[in-house]
């Protein structure tokens, strides 16, 4: 262990941890303000906001020797005996001066700036700045530069931390952003004809500590202080990035990556980031519809009636096949399997359609966008494994239905994109009863006896298992639209369980009944659990 002294308080850090002074001070509960430093990017030590006084304590004598000048906390490693002092007049004056310097050319247009409320320049100014303006008063402009399809640069707001530039060089590897001009005339820009257009571009907006980089998708949509934040998991692909869903009054406004060292570090891809708009699409299925026996019309059925009638009809239809969508959570899948087997003890349980697109795409910074465009294939396979000797997939189900091996099918889908064509769907039309649960109308749902609406990813609670066998539990950020029951609620009620759907109770039940999923039994950490590692540890 190594001892670091932060403002007189001793803290222990691991002997082999490579922490800088900012990280070490944070452990001691001391926030050292910083702009240019970011744990996921190289250190440039250029904003000079994190200047602190440091020294060393002699291990033998206990005598402390201080360095004569200020050093950047980001660049200075915290080692055994390192003394960090952040509350001296020298440090405070230095911070106030950096704040003052940054505001010389800043337009201070907070009232019309999207970043207001979550802006480091604002926060640090209130905390470390000085109340008086000493620089000359000058008219400010609001110059905008369109740097790419997703991002607008508000040139004058920039404080030249270069986080965005380093991101495109080190993480996305695309190097579109650069610094032009020199001295106080410096600006961020792109080379003509080479806009910021890569699959991770939205991250530069998160990295921007001020309001310089604006996300076109979010710009002027909502004041950030109205937003509520729910820790969530992205359903866009099998990477399962930890995210925060930011919403207000059941409307999602943006998704942000949530730091998870095991999954996505600090990043997420644009596909996931902007992949929430389908939640609020006017085309969504919004009610449970039962085909009227006389024709093609559907009558809307009350959910409480669905619970009983669905069970009766499926039981009467005969041999039941169930497709369990990889969009569902572990809990939903488990309840669906249990419900299906309670209707038909021989019910065939199949993994639902797994949408894929291209191949996995990796970036220099280690981030990977997965080809498998669903969040929970591994989880569904694990659940099916509890009920079936082998996991059969969607193609097996299509073949079996075409071969008339089943009389009824219950297809869960909840895919945000079109996923099935008429030809594939056609054999399902011959079934005696077909239940389809999906977000949108599809060739399959047109044939359905029961067309049930599904929940979107941010409307769902439960656990997903990503491509690396990491199980992450999350809570719904928003309620589904009126008239829509999330799948879990329907299954819960079909199982005859009492009270409100409680995914945590189901999760514990799954853990109790399965060795391979035992790791999800306890309280789930924010970063999730690795099913393989924890499994090995317990046996």
């Amino acid at each position, binding site marked *: 262990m190594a001892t670091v002294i932060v403002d007189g308080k001793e803290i222990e850090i691991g002997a082999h941890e490579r922490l800088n002074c900012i990280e070490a001070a944070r452990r001691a509960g001391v926030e050292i303000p910083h702009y240019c430093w970011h744990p996921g990017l190289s250190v440039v030590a250029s*904003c*000079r906001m994190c200047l602190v006084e440091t020294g060393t304590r002699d291990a033998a004598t206990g005598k402390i020797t201080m360095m004569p000048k200020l050093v950047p906390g980001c660049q200075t490693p915290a080692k055994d005996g390192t003394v960090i002092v952040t509350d001296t007049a020298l440090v405070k004056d230095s911070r106030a001066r950096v704040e003052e310097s940054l505001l010389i050319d800043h337009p201070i247009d907070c009232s019309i700036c999207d970043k207001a409320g979550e802006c480091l320049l604002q926060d640090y100014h209130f905390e470390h700045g000085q109340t008086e303006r000493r620089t000359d008063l000058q008219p400010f402009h609001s110059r905008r530069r369109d740097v790419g399809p997703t991002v607008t640069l508000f040139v004058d707001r920039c404080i030249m931390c270069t986080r965005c530039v380093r991101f495109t060089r080190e993480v996305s590897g695309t190097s579109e952003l650069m610094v032009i001009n*020199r001295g106080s005339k410096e600006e961020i820009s792109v080379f003509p004809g080479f806009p910021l257009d890569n699959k991770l571009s939205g991250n530069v907006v998160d990295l921007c500590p001020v309001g310089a980089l604006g996300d076109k998708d979010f710009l002027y949509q909502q004041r950030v202080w109205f937003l509520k934040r729910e820790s969530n998991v992205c359903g866009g692909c099998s990477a399962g990035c930890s995210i925060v869903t930011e919403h207000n009054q059941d409307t999602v406004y943006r998704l942000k990556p949530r730091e998870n060292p095991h999954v996505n570090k600090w990043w997420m891809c644009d596909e996931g980031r902007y992949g929430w708009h389908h939640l609020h699409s006017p085309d969504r299925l919004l009610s449970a519809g039962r085909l009227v026996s006389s024709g093609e019309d559907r009558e809307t059925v009350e959910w409480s009636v669905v619970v009983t009638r669905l069970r009766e009809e499926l039981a009467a239809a005969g041999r039941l096949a169930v497709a369990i969508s990889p969009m569902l959570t572990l809990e939903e899948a488990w309840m669906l399997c249990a419900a299906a087997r309670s209707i038909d003890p021989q019910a065939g349980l199949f993994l639902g359609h797994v949408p894929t697109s291209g191949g996995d795409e990796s970036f220099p910074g280690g981030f990977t966008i997965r080809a498998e465009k669903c969040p929970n294939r591994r989880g569904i396979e694990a659940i099916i494994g509890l009920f079936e000797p082998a996991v059969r997939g969607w193609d097996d189900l299509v073949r079996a239905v075409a071969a008339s091996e089943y009389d009824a099918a219950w297809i869960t889908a909840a895919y945000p994109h079109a996923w099935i064509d008429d030809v594939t769907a056609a054999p399902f039309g011959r079934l005696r009863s077909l239940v389809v649960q999906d977000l949108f109308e599809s060739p399959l749902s047109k044939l359905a006896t029961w067309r049930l609406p599904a929940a979107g990813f941010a409307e769902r609670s439960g656990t997903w298992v990503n491509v690396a066998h990491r199980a992450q539990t999350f809570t719904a950020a928003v309620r589904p639209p009126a008239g829509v029951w999330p799948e879990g609620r329907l299954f819960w009620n079909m199982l005859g369980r009492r009270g409100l759907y409680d995914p945590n109770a189901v999760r514990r039940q799954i853990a109790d009944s399965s060795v391979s999923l035992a790791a999800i039994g306890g309280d789930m950490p924010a970063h999730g659990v690795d099913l393989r590692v924890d499994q090995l540890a317990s046996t």
Partner: protein
Amino acid sequence: MANFQPVLLEAVGVPGGHTLKSYRERGGYAPLERMLKEKQPAEVTELVKASGLRGRGGAGFPTGLKWTFLPKDHPGPIYLCINADESEPGTFNNRILMEDDPHQVIEGIILSAYATRATTAYLYLRYEYPQCWDRLQSAIDEAYAAGLLGKDIQGSGFSLDLYLHRGAAAYICGEETGLIESLEGKRAWPRIKPPFPAIEGLFRKPTVVNNIETMACVAQIARRGVDWFRSIGVPADPNNPRDPGSYGPKLYCLSGHVERPGCYEAPLGITARQLIDGHGGGVWKGRKAKAVIPGGISMGLLTEAELDTPLDFAGPGKVGCLGLGTAAVVVIDETVSIVDFLHNSCRFFAHESCGQCTPCREGTAWSLRMLERIRAGKGRLKDLELLAEIGNTMGMMPGSTICGLADGAAWPIKNAIKKFRGEFEEYIKRTNPSGWMVTDPVPALPIVGAH
């Protein structure tokens, strides 16, 4: 003093002095050939270390000591970079050396490369020196043809390739890590240290960066010996164990308001007055000096009363200047407004700040804005306080920047305000009789000229 013979400037005025033939006739390259045969690299380093040679580029770091910071038995390449990005205002001694005696420089480079075990050397030349480019390139070609560069130099087994690289005219490329970044093809933003270039420099390999004049001194030390070198200059202060002394001849660039401006070679420790009166023929037009820049604009100002300050590495610091710098002595006569001087200085640094560190990027621009306003007759006494604060808080010394450019920008401000405060106050009160006492923020003037 009187019998001091120029050594570094030996070739100046010699017809064809820049050619290999002329250099050979003056005894050049013989010491190199002898050293390659007789001495191990470590012995050459020891020689330079023993000579007390300090880097001539501005910081005055002991050259031999710098070489010993290279990792021992490093398996990969070691690079030698020669800093010829001579852009400190008032400085032109490297130019003289490169134009009039390029082989002296090349001999020094080969010796230094041998001592540091570098097999590749880059000479980073400032863009504005086309004549140097031509002379150096033809000298390098001559050296290759004569087997002084290239593979297996003079049968010694030591190989060296020397590349001439031309910069794109930026002051910051003279900062050693800025130079390295620029050489790598990047924006010349100085690197954070540690790691120092000796550990991780050009292409992330151990690198030594030395000045042109330092190279010439190395060649002369090899030719004339350590004792000769140490017989010139100012010995180390016995009461200050951290003073390595100021040995050897130095090229002083005398310019500004003197009768005979030029590059003069003198022993380190000559006083500014001796230089101006002895070599420069005194301040021009029979006037008095108001101030003298001791070693390039970034070193600050000497007042007329401080002209007896010895111009060695320790001298200017004793009267509040930053140091000897590049030994570019610029004389400012009594008719010049110190406000104009400072405005000029601030404009230079606001233009040349690389813009990486906040205090320098904004501080240099802010000081320029204030000077512009003061010169427009809208100055306030408060501006002097603000300027002094910028001067005192910007730079490597207070720890607020990565490189020394900000210190160079701060020193003229600091010195001018401190040493000529009366003139500033008088100027502000005279030109802004109704507003000099205002302390509230005032409207900024549109800024011209900086970029």
